[in-house]
């Protein structure tokens, strides 16, 4: 139920909300694969990888240096990157990392495979509606309340789009389209509530 609880967290800023969206709707964006992808462009130091990750994917939540180097260490252990000799300079790690054939193959696989389409929230909504009908609770009122909550989130995301940059807008769009899909389900279910109630109470 991670998705529902994330959706329920009050957004403090557009960036924070965008980060929620990333977690909600783009679970395939993992740090190891993203760093591998950045390394496929060119060999890089950990510092450069962190900077690029934060620029393109961080959306207000910078990747901690510790996580960068720990991830690079695991990738090296698994033969997906090779760390060069330490270079002189300030900082804890001045190695330049290079992607291996194994790592490049993994990126190629990842970028060509579709993400599993998972209708997360509908299952919760569906369970609530069916249970409400079973228990003689006001399912229509629940759906209206849920519609209002969805629209409130859509308002916040629309504001993010209006005031943010292109990256924020694209992430917000992803969320908006998913919320819109839920809303369409809510509307259709509202229209069919009487039939659903008969079915639920008859079984």
């Amino acid at each position: 139920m991670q998705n529902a609880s994330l959706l329920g967290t009050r957004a403090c800023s557009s960036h924070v909300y965008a980060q929620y969206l990333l977690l909600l709707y783009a679970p395939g964006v993992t740090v190891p694969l993203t760093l591998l992808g950045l390394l496929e462009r060119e060999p890089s130091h950990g510092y450069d990888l962190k900077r690029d990750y934060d620029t393109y994917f961080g959306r207000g939540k910078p990747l901690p240096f510790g996580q960068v180097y720990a991830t690079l260490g695991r990738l090296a252990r698994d033969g997906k990157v090779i760390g060069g000799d330490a270079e002189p300079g300030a900082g804890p790690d001045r190695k330049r990392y290079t992607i291996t054939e194994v790592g490049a193959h993994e990126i190629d696989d990842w970028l060509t495979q579709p993400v599993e389409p998972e209708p997360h929230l509908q299952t919760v909504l569906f369970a609530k509606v069916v249970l409400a009908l079973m228990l003689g609770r006001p399912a229509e009122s629940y759906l209206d309340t849920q519609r209002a909550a969805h629209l409130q989130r859509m308002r916040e995301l629309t504001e993010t789009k209006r005031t943010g940059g292109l990256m924020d807008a694209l992430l917000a769009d992803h969320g908006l389209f998913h919320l819109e899909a839920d809303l369409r389900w809510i509307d259709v279910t509202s229209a069919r509530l009487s039939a659903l109630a008969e079915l639920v109470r008859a079984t």
Partner: protein
Amino acid sequence: MTSLNFPHAPGDGGGRRSLVKALDVYRSFGRTPALTGASLSVSKGEILAIMGPSGSGKSTLLHCLAGIFTPDSGEVWFDGQRLDTLSDAKRTELRRTAFGFVFQFGQLVPELTVTDNIALPLLLGRASRKAAYGAAESWLPRLDLDGVGRRRTGELSGGQAQRVALARALVARPQVLFADEPTGSLDTLTGELVMDLLVGSAREEGTTVVLVTHDARVAAYADREVLVRDGKVVDRSDAQVEVGQ
């Protein structure tokens, strides 16, 4: 669990002064009831979305609020005066001076140029040609319509036509803009551009907006939404919504 406190109490738009109001409005077309006791209040400066499925009565409600339809019973108020009991002539005058309209298909006059169309409400209000065309031309850059002022409206894309319709609706600086599915004939990105401009212009001008839409993405531009179901208004904006599992 997180509590969402919606900013507006039902009907009072968060404590601001009510500018447009419907009280227990009934309206039928022949034997078909469209509104069956609809009540609604829109505050000054508020952007309100009226949502609902096809045939729910949302467009009829908008037409009643705008004084285009008169209710069979119930009351419609605008800025402290009863609208539904005004004479046809007075309601027409009010629509021309205080209201602006944008519909799904711009409803521009095809024989006229873009600037003619935008200037039309002012010319009908007996403004001088110089003042009317000056105001009309000032709207062209605001709505990204530079260079199309002399085109006939049949030569425009759908998005351009809706922006012209928006300029025409706002040129007389109405107190209320009524919009019925203003992006219904547009693709997603063009619709977003029109909504950005509609909401941006309305906020700049302090115009109250009543917006009918079945599209949640359009409704999300509004400050508040209500749902029309079976001819009645359902307003959940007062709900203390507990969002969680």
